[in-house]
């Protein structure tokens, strides 16, 4: 099972990314767990400068922008 993490402090962009990730998982029909990380110390452990960040299986895939559903689906 894949693990998807959304890093973000709770701004609208981060919520959009989470919604798109859920949509992408449904679209692909894969088994994936989506975790929203809002704690700033935990976020900083990934050494990123801009949010939101998409992490798949502990690897940073996209940072600082909201990807489309299709884009996330391709990464899964």
């Amino acid at each position, binding site marked *: 099972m894949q693990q998807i993490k959304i890093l973000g402090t*709770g*701004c609208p*962009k981060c919520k959009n990314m989470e919604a798109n990730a859920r949509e992408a998982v449904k679209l692909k029909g894969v088994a994936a767990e989506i975790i929203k990380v809002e704690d*700033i110390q935990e976020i900083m452990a990934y*050494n990123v400068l*801009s949010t939101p960040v998409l992490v798949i299986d502990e690897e940073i895939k996209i940072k*600082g922008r909201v990807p*489309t559903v299709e884009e996330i689906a391709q990464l899964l």
Partner: protein
Amino acid sequence: MFDWIQMLADGLVYGLLGLEQHSRWGEALSFFIYDSIKILFLLMLITSLMGIVNSYFPIDRIRNFLSRNKLYGAEYLLASTFGAVTPFCSCSSVPLFIGFVKGGIPLGVTFAFLITSPLVNEVAVAMFIGIFGWKTTLIYVSSGILLGTVGGYILGRLRLEHLLSDWVKGVLHNAQQEDAWEEERLNFRQRLPVIGREAIGIVKSVFWYVIVGIGIGALMHGFIPTGFFEAWITRDNPLAVPLAVLMGVPMYSNAAGVLPVVQVLVQKGVPLGTALAFMMAVVGLSLPEATLLKKVMSLKLIAIFFGVVTLCIIISGYVFNLIF
């Protein structure tokens, strides 16, 4: 450059809707349509241009550049300039702050970036060009960058590192230059859809602020007599600038919402410098930002940060009034 929009707006209001020329509602409506189209057009243009710059020059590269080079004081000016060209979302200010500290960038330089970032950005620039023209935009942008540079330098000299939150001090202790940085390797054709999407996203996110701001501005334009504000905010009143700034600090709006209102204030007799200082206080400092920063610094440091920036804004208000 924008004559066609004015003709369109006038044709719509006076021709199609048949409102009387120079009537209050007619003037307000024509002003509203003209300003909305012009500003949305400029917003789309400038956000796309800035999007291209940012796609090739992302924040990670800026951080690494600042952390690797010894610049003998120029780093304040550079950080402030970078703050102007990077898009700013207040929710990113904390990760950004930590990221800079982690990369070994001095606190004052980080502050320089943080001060300029909300003051000068693509939305503010687009609206400034639309409302006040190129010359005023240039003066605003350069004074915004100067403000960040000076504010950052002062805060740097105050040596405030001990006022950071404990866990941030830990980060500071382990600070190191970071070179690791993987770039998304894309050509221009691949980047373009992303840039376009981002630009549309930004315009969408400020759309209602712009419309409501212009709406309020249009009503004031049509109904408040010229010179109305002069009664109490006059050029001769030495307290006008600090009062306007202190009123603006706790308020929160982005440039998109506040600029149309500032435009009308100026038209109705408020000195441009006083109005600009008010605007800088509204967009540059706010209570929500203070709440966010609480996660990384003590209340005392936030107070000093806000105090220094407020002072700088007041001074620039006086300077603006001398220039204009």
